[in-house]
């Protein structure tokens, strides 16, 4: 039980329709903050590819091939480990189910790999069943580079560091090894509703 902070009072009043939508320790923002560990990469679309599968046996799409895949529009709430949540964000992307259908389900865990060297680990069960996308548009516009364009992973039910920007591949594997932030002490799974921010939470 946390001690009461002398003189601290709630200043933010979240509207009633937000009830039940904001995980513990989070606050709602209307901005779309940007967080990343290094410079924003800018990969030309004619050099962009996306791959999925076991190392050495991956299925790869060019940008044109990727954009020819069936797409979905989704509106979801997103939750960043730095405490902000943003409600009703609108994305377009290719469902990871669609990608795995083409490549074959082969391994219980995935490591997302990105331009700039970023990685993050996600169980395949959290990427399938309509729970994750490779998103290329936000709010009806092509995804900007600072928000992860040309395409980013979108796994809205986990903290947003799992929704890797500039994603280029999902490597399927047998073990759930930590990715970039997970190696620096962030939670291996990252469920915002259980407030799994850091290792041991």
């Amino acid at each position, binding site marked *: 039980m946390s*001690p009461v902070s002398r003189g*601290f009072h709630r200043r933010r009043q979240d509207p009633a329709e937000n009830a039940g939508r904001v995980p513990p*320790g989070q*606050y709602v923002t209307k901005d779309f903050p940007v967080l990343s560990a290094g*410079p924003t990469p800018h990969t030309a679309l004619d050099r962009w590819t996306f791959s999925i599968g076991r190392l050495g046996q991956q299925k790869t799409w060019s940008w044109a091939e990727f954009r020819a895949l069936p797409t979905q529009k989704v509106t979801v709430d997103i939750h960043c480990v730095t405490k902000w949540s943003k409600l009703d964000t609108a994305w377009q992307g290719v469902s990871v189910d669609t990608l795995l259908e083409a490549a074959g389900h082969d391994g219980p865990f995935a490591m997302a790999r990105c331009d700039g060297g970023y990685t993050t680990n996600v169980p395949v069960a959290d990427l399938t069943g309509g729970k994750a996308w490779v998103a290329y548009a936000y709010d009806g516009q092509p995804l900007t580079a600072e928000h992860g364009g040309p395409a980013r992973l979108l796994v809205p039910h986990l903290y947003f560091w799992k929704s890797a920007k500039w994603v280029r591949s999902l490597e399927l594997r047998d073990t759930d090894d930590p990715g970039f932030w997970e190696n*620096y002490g962030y939670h291996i799974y990252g469920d915002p509703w259980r407030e799994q921010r850091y290792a041991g939470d």
Partner: protein
Amino acid sequence: MAGTALRRRLTWQVAKVSAVTVETASVRTLTLEVPDWPGHQAGQHLDIRLTGEDGYVAERSYSIASAPGEPVAITVERLDDGEVSLYLTDELRTGDDLELRGPIGGYFVWEPGNGGPLLLLAGGSGIVPLRSVLRHRERAGSTVPVRLVYSSRTLNDVIYRAELDRPASGVEVIYTLTRSQPPGWSGYARRADAALLAEVAWPAAAMPLAYVCGPTSFVEAVSQALVQSGYPPERIKTERFGATGGT
């Protein structure tokens, strides 16, 4: 793996405010007595948790302003709609309790062994973790050459000015004031862009290590300019500060 040692449980604990320092009209440094602090690296941050009498809880992250080995301190900028920052800057007093856990983050950090030359680029309150780096360098007796480029709106918005006006040997501090300048100002008076960096940044051939912290627009502009001038992206570490809308 460098980060593996950090993968331990972070537990909440109650610290006591031992000093409140006025840095600028809107910025305070809170020095904290933390009963069980495991030590931190220059550049890391910590989490604060406030609890109201009705059980309402708010959490935020703040960069650590002090060097490893110094008492833990955070520097907080008051934001007009900031629930937590208003409390920390205007309400909290010496002797008050403050719940926290940390340290957090292990990428945007510097140790003397990481070398340099160092290029530190701060926008506004983005100076905070870089000040920890500067103090750490001095306390550790490092002679790594440093250039700090610090962009503020006005001279009165410069945080740690007394300290930065007397830099340690081997440290150059370059201010740029983007909104207004005092009479007789001879420093830079524009945004930290490619042209400014071409004048003051270490050349890429010196294999510098760059740390960029500030609002998103600052970080994007500066890091892109450095990449275009030949800095390898992996030698540029970035952290966004104050970009989370109403902390």
